[in-house]
């Protein structure tokens, strides 16, 4: 389970983006269930880390941070090498006779200023080297990391600076150990030894109380002053090495420790920003809503659609003029429009409100020796009642009697079930006529 806010932010954002392809119903069901399991155990809804652990597949996006890890490593390495070279340069270039303490202090001041400036740009969200970094990385950073670029850059810079400070200090100590270093101070400014002593004494304030050996006294300051055009040797060469504890402590207190503190501050700021970004992430509010909102499911089961094949329409006959009987099924009424075409056909009723006895009577009275037309409403699907009636009709009139289903229709939409009904019956003498426009009043819909 991830505990770093930055890692949590990246994991959450990645899961949020994956979830965007899911349906809202699925997300709600999944997250509400998790919250309910916790609720039943007497716990609060899961934290983001617990939620990610529950729904995630264990994948952690590493690519977004890889670039920053590389940059961090590069800067630490470069800072370390530069620290060694800078300190060696300082000790050799200004020597070999005497190493100027003033120059050393100036380097300390520069380092301190750089550290503070780096912290400032990181806190202010400014990226002075942003364009350069973007050029080196044509791929856009991960969306979740975009607002953290200044803080990530600030942290990398502070890490590089700390590496510089530490290796420089180690180099100084190594040189003190293996070489006979002589320090002195020199400046063009008109200043006196007591004034210079006042400066170093003030700088030594942090350790003055507990490490007096690292505080140069006035005698050392006065004895170690030199001028470039002065060729004389110092009165006591052994005395000039006495600067080193002060210089080591100065570097430690004003370069190494500030860098370390600012690196920790950068790290804390990065974590704080990541936490705030996570808190303001649009997915978090939605997730909390899903945790607390009951999951209302109104049934997701949809009946499987059975692919129904409608037979190719065969030429639809018209009711023949030699029709013997017209049966109005279940109240279907053509308002007498069909009768003139049917000659002397007998008109009977069946189905619907008629009783089963009336149906049997209709079968008996119908002229089974001649074609029978059954008038039906096309917008009512054929029912089992009609199928039974047709079975009985066949039994009564024999297989050869032509039976024609004459649909009354307002449009073609209801005809397919009738075509399938006729096809299903596999009765060569049963046919579906072309529809007769229904009387609007009778058809109503």
């Amino acid at each position, binding site marked *: 389970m991830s505990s770093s806010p930055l890692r949590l932010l990246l994991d959450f954002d990645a899961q949020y983006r994956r979830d965007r392809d899911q349906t809202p119903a699925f997300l709600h069901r999944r997250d509400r269930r998790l919250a309910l399991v916790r609720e039943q155990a007497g716990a609060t809804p899961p934290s983001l880390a617990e939620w990610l652990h529950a729904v995630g597949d264990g994948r952690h996006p590493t690519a977004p941070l890889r670039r920053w890890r590389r940059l961090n490593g590069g800067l630490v390495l470069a800072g370390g090498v530069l620290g060694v070279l800078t300190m060696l340069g300082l000790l050799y270039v200004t020597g070999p006779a005497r190493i100027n303490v003033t120059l050393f202090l100036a380097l300390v001041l520069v380092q301190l200023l750089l550290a503070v400036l780096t912290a400032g740009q990181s806190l202010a969200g400014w990226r002075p080297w942003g364009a350069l970094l*973007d050029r080196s990385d*044509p791929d856009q950073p991960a969306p979740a990391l975009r607002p953290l670029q200044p803080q990530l850059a600030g942290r990398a810079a502070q890490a590089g600076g700390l590496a510089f400070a530490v290796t420089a200090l180690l180099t100084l100590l190594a040189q003190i150990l293996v070489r006979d270093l002589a320090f002195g101070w020199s400046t063009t400014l008109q200043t006196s030894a007591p004034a210079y002593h006042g400066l170093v004494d003030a700088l030594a304030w942090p350790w003055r109380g507990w490490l007096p050996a690292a505080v140069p006294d006035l005698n050392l300051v006065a004895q170690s002053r030199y001028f470039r055009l002065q060729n004389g040797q110092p009165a006591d060469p052994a005395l000039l090495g006495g600067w080193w504890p002060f210089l080591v402590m100065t570097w430690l207190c004003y370069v190494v420790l500030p860098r370390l503190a600012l690196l920790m501050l950068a790290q804390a700021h990065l974590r704080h920003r990541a936490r705030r970004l996570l808190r303001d992430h649009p997915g978090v509010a939605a997730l909390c*809503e899903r945790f607390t909102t009951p999951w209302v499911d*109104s*049934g997701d089961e949809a009946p499987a659609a059975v692919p129904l094949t409608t037979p190719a329409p065969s030429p639809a006959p018209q009711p023949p003029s030699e029709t013997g009987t017209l049966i109005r099924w279940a109240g279907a009424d053509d308002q007498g429009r069909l009768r003139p075409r049917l000659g002397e056909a007998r008109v009977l009723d069946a189905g619907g409100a008629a009783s089963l006895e009336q149906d049997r009577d209709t079968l008996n009275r119908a002229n089974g020796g001649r074609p029978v037309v059954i008038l039906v409403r096309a917008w*009512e699907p054929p029912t089992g009642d009609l199928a039974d009636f047709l079975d009985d009709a066949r039994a009564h009139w024999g297989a050869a009697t032509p039976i024609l289903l004459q649909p009354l229709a307002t449009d073609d939409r209801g005809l397919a079930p009738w075509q399938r009904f006729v096809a299903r019956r596999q009765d060569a003498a049963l046919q579906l006529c072309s529809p007769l426009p229904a009387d609007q009043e009778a058809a*109503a819909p």
Partner: protein
Amino acid sequence: MTAPPRFAVVGHPNKGKSSIVATLAQNDGIAIALEPGTTRDSHHYPLSVDGHVLYELIDTPGFQRPRKVLAWLQAHSASASDRADTVRAFVTQHRDDPRFHDECELLTPILDGAGILYVVDGAVPYSPEQEAEMEILRWTGRPSLALINRIGQGDHLADWRAALGQYFQIVRDFDAVRAPFDTHLSLLRGFGQLAPDWEAPLEEAVNHLRDQRRHRQHRALGLIAEALADMLTHAESARFNEHDNRDALEHDLARRWRDRQRRREQTLRRDVEALYRHRHLHRREQQLDWDGGHDLFSEQARRAWGVSRTYLATAGFGAGALGGAGIDALAAGHSLGTGALIGGVLGAAGSLYYGGKYADKLGALKLLAPLAGGGRRAEFGPVRDPQFGYVVLGRALEHWFQVSHRNHAGRDPLTLDHGDRHWLEQLPRGDRQRLQKALQNPPRHQSDGKRRQALEQAVENAGGAFLEWRKTPSASG
């Protein structure tokens, strides 16, 4: 623990049983999947809250041989007291008889304790043909409610009410396709009146469904705000080399930018439809023809959903003044409102300048920093015309309104249209200024919490105003 109430939706084939279930179960798959009269098996649609079932709807096949069933019942019953047992005996006797499969299927849940929801079509005249069905249902002795659905244009409700009143405890009208959401809830409460034990779970279900609707509205408006922010800040980029044709690149990027905006709008619509569980919605909108008609970038779209230059100037002044007032606050009032005034004038001027002829000032090519490997980064977007935000928002709100007010039994394609008057008239002045400010300052990235919340709030207010506007008669177009 008592079993949740169950309701068997029964009736003659093709009278809208599945439509009723589709609307009440909010499942448009039911209405789409089945051809009228082809339901052969019962389908159960429980309404559950956090896995706890509050009630269940059962979609059943229609009666196929009611007269034969009734004849059998009458032949095997000795007195009125054994009628329910006789119906049970019929089902037991004919369970394996394919001729009575549908009747057994629809009677079984009723005999197992379900209430009866008998559906008729009030658009066709009453005829006594269905009396056999009603008589069979009465024999079961179960609580019953008749629903007069209206499939067509005819109106024979009075006749049906009179007839159904003789067979059923409660008779209600319910248009499965057009009934508003409050009517759904009212109908569910009606189900609860059928038996004393059913009232509480149905009331609880109604409350949850109402909360669910509120939650969906909030989510839908959040989706609109998210899409709006995305569309307002989107930019297309490419590498521009020294010898490239700048006009051709601008044309290409502009085309890509517009296509992407259209796709984003479609994605938003799909998301909103999925939220309301309309999975089979066919959209009919003239904008589908992107070369003209109601394209997102057409002049028609601007006329329908854009705002006037006067509106832009006024709202721009207000939005600018809101920002300028921050300077006055910093100056502890010593600036005497100069900040608000300057902000207002700048806001109005900016809105007027960019709010010209729609689509002309949507964006322009910008050449940015040099790229590694040569060339410079060229970008088209984000949009500059403040009209664009209003057009996107208006179209999104219209689509959301149509989807959220559409019943799941509806099969007609969704038609998106607009009225004569502008919906912004319903938005209070302060909200208009906040909306303008939010559209001018959309969140640049997802973690831009402050701007995102401002936009979400502005869209939430806009959604409320849009609903009010839609209630006015002139809004129906």
